Structure formats: C-alpha cells, structure tokens
C-alpha cells in the first residue's frame, strides 16, 4: 500500500530533477534541509532516523542531493524523506517534508480488533510485509 505522508505523496514519485527543484525552493527560503530514513513507516512513528545533521548554510541543492545519494546507497530499501526546517523566530519548525525514496514493496496496514472488558473493543494498526 502506498504510504501517503508529507507533501506530494499522492503524486507519482518525484524524479531527481524535481527533488532538486523543491530543494532549491527550500534553500531560497533559507530553510535547513535534513535527510531522514526509516524502515517503519507506521504513522505513529514520527521520529525517523537522521542521516547526518541537518544542513544549514547550504547554497546549492547539489549538497543535499549528494547526501541523499549516499543515504540511498546505504538504505536503498528504506523510506527516505527530506525535512525543511525554518529557523525564523515564530516558526522554528519543519515547514515542508516529503518522501524521496520508497522500498520496492511497500507494506500493507492491518487492523487488529481485540475484545476488551465488558464487550468493548480496541483497534490497533500494524504494518505487514
């Protein structure tokens, strides 16, 4: 099942030129780019593994693309996303986040219903390959 998290996730996968263009847009806004990856795309898994430190004071998207390529070589089967962090006072948060790499086979999500006390029921999600 196709994971839809962050920007552009309902669109076809971005090509490298498109990613470069998006990164240029982020850098144009003085946002810092961080590369993150995970093997567990569960929606509740908010904090992904960081691939190096977020990159402040870059001028060109190529620097990000180099890191992304390295991350892809090391974790080709993982989900990789780019986070654009805005350090402007008042925001100080991630302004944009999008997935740039997906595994060949994406997991499906399975809903598990369990009985609970006095006939009430509980639901839980888990990713299944």
């Amino acid at each position, binding site marked *: 099942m196709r994971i839809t998290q962050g920007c552009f996730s309902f669109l076809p996968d971005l090509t490298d030129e498109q990613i470069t263009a998006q990164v240029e847009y982020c850098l144009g806004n003085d946002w810092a780019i961080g590369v993150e990856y995970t093997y567990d795309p569960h929606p509740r898994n908010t904090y992904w593994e960081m691939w190096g430190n977020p990159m402040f004071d870059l*001028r*060109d998207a190529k620097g990000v693309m180099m890191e992304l390529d390295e991350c892809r070589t090391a974790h080709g089967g993982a989900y990789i996303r780019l986070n654009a962090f805005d350090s402007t006072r008042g925001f100080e948060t991630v302004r944009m986040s999008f997935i740039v790499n997906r595994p060949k086979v994406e997991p499906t999500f399975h809903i598990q219903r369990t009985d609970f006390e006095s006939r009430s029921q509980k639901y839980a999600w888990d990713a299944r390959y």
Partner: protein
Amino acid sequence: MDAVTEAPKTVDLAAEYESSGVAEVLRELDRDLIGLAPVKQRIRQTAALLLVDRARRDMGLAQETPTLHMSFTGNPGTGKTTVALMMAGLLHRLGYVRKGHLVTVTRDDLVGQYIGHTAPKTKEVLKKAMGGVLFIDEAYYLYKPDNERDYGQEAIEILLQVMENNRDDLVVIMAGYADRMDRFFAANPGFRSRIAHHIEFPDYTDAELLKIAEAMLDGQNYGLDPAGRKAMAEYIALRRTQPHFANARSVRNALDRARLRQANRLFETATGPLDARALSTITDPDIRASRVFSGGLDVDRPASREDQP
C-alpha cells in the same frame, strides 16, 4: 511537449560579451584592482576562452565542461582572495557555476583532528561550496611530507575525487606562495593535471602600493596631504626591505595605525573646533611616527623597548 530549440547558426561575440555581464566584471576588475597587469591579462584570456566555449556548446560543437580549477600563486597581500571573489562572479555570469558564492577555507576547515574526522569535515565544506567557488588558502599545508600519517592526505583524496566528478558543480581555486605551491604540486601530481589555469600574482611596485594606500583611504573618507604622501612613499620603500612584508596588507595595517595616531594627535593638540578636513587628513607625523622609520618592525621589538611613540 518540449519545444525543440534550434541550435544557433552564428554568434555575435561582442553582443554576448556585453549581455552576459562579463564585460561588467572585467571593467570592475580594471577599475578596482591597481597593478596586477599579468593577472588581468590572464583573466581576460580565460573569460574569452569560456565565452567562446559557451558559444560552441550552444552550437553543439562541444559537450564537455572545461576544467576550470585554478591555482593562484603569489606573495601575501597581492590580491589573491579579491581576485577569487571576482572570478566567482565571472564564472557565475558565464553560467559555469550556478550560485557564484565564494567559500574560503584553510587546512583547519578541511582536516580533522582524529581518525574518521577528516572525511565528514571535508564533505561538509564541499557541500557548502557546491554551486560556487571553493577557495583553499595556503593549500600546501594540506600536504605534510614529513608526517606519513597526517590526515591531510585524506582531505586531498576527497578533494581530487570531487574535482573530477563534480566539475559541473564547483570550481576549486588553490592559493599560496609560489615556491611552496610548486613543491605541493610536485608531490601531488593529481592536482597539477586537474588544474588548468595557473595564475601568478606579481608583487606590487612602490608606486602601485602608494596608489593602493590612497584608494584605501579614499574608501574610508580619509586623505593624505602632500607631506603625508611623501612620508607614505618613503614608508613603503623602507617597509619592503624589512621582514614580514605583505604588500597591500602591510599598507592597510600601516594605514590603520596611522589613523590611530592621527586620532591621538588631534585629541592632544586640538584647541578649538575641528572641521571635516582636519578630521580626515592623514599627515606627515602620523606616518613618520611608525617604527619602520627607526629601523625595526613593531612586532619584532622586545617588550622592554615599548617606549617609543
């Protein structure tokens, strides 16, 4: 979907020269830099080459990005960093680098302090320099032949790799003293073959240094009176014979100290109100008080003799 752009049949180099903004950069170079005739000549040649090369690429005659890495050799204070900054602007106007910023680094920024520290540090710098110009000042410090386990070698290897693979993304300029750079290149043949343009920066003549001094003062709204100019000319001639002479940088330091003395002189001697002219004129005693005239450098004096003005 995409419109196929027809390759142009002819090119008007003069028009291209003006419209690309190269003419402006070269004019700026002529105006702002005093002396350095061979350097200007080389830059003009390089600009012409790049312009023609770009026209050839537009016509489909050439595909390869030319090698643009350069080495600037010359004594301290001969304007290597200033020219590097202009070079970044020039390459940006010609479309050979995307952003045209200059990242200045020395050995400390590239080489780490323990095993495994160097590669991330060098990569960090390279990432920042992407799309611009990486200026490595005193590049020969990267290579220390007397220490086999020096981490500089690791930085050199990464640099060489990036200089080869990312030719479209960044231009590396290495700078340093001529003789030591020659030894550096002899020990690292990889660099020599990857650097296409070797530009030598000659020392300034005394007359040029005096002009530079006046231009610097002018930039800060100061001026020399005739006696002050004469003193400055003598100062430059004397300073050249003393150790640690660094061309334009020595002149700038001398002027900074002269301004200090001028302020002091005004403070001690002024009795009435001062006009703008008095506040911005550097004169003879401001310069003659320098220890250069009494035969020694300020920095070389032992502390016990700190009694002179």
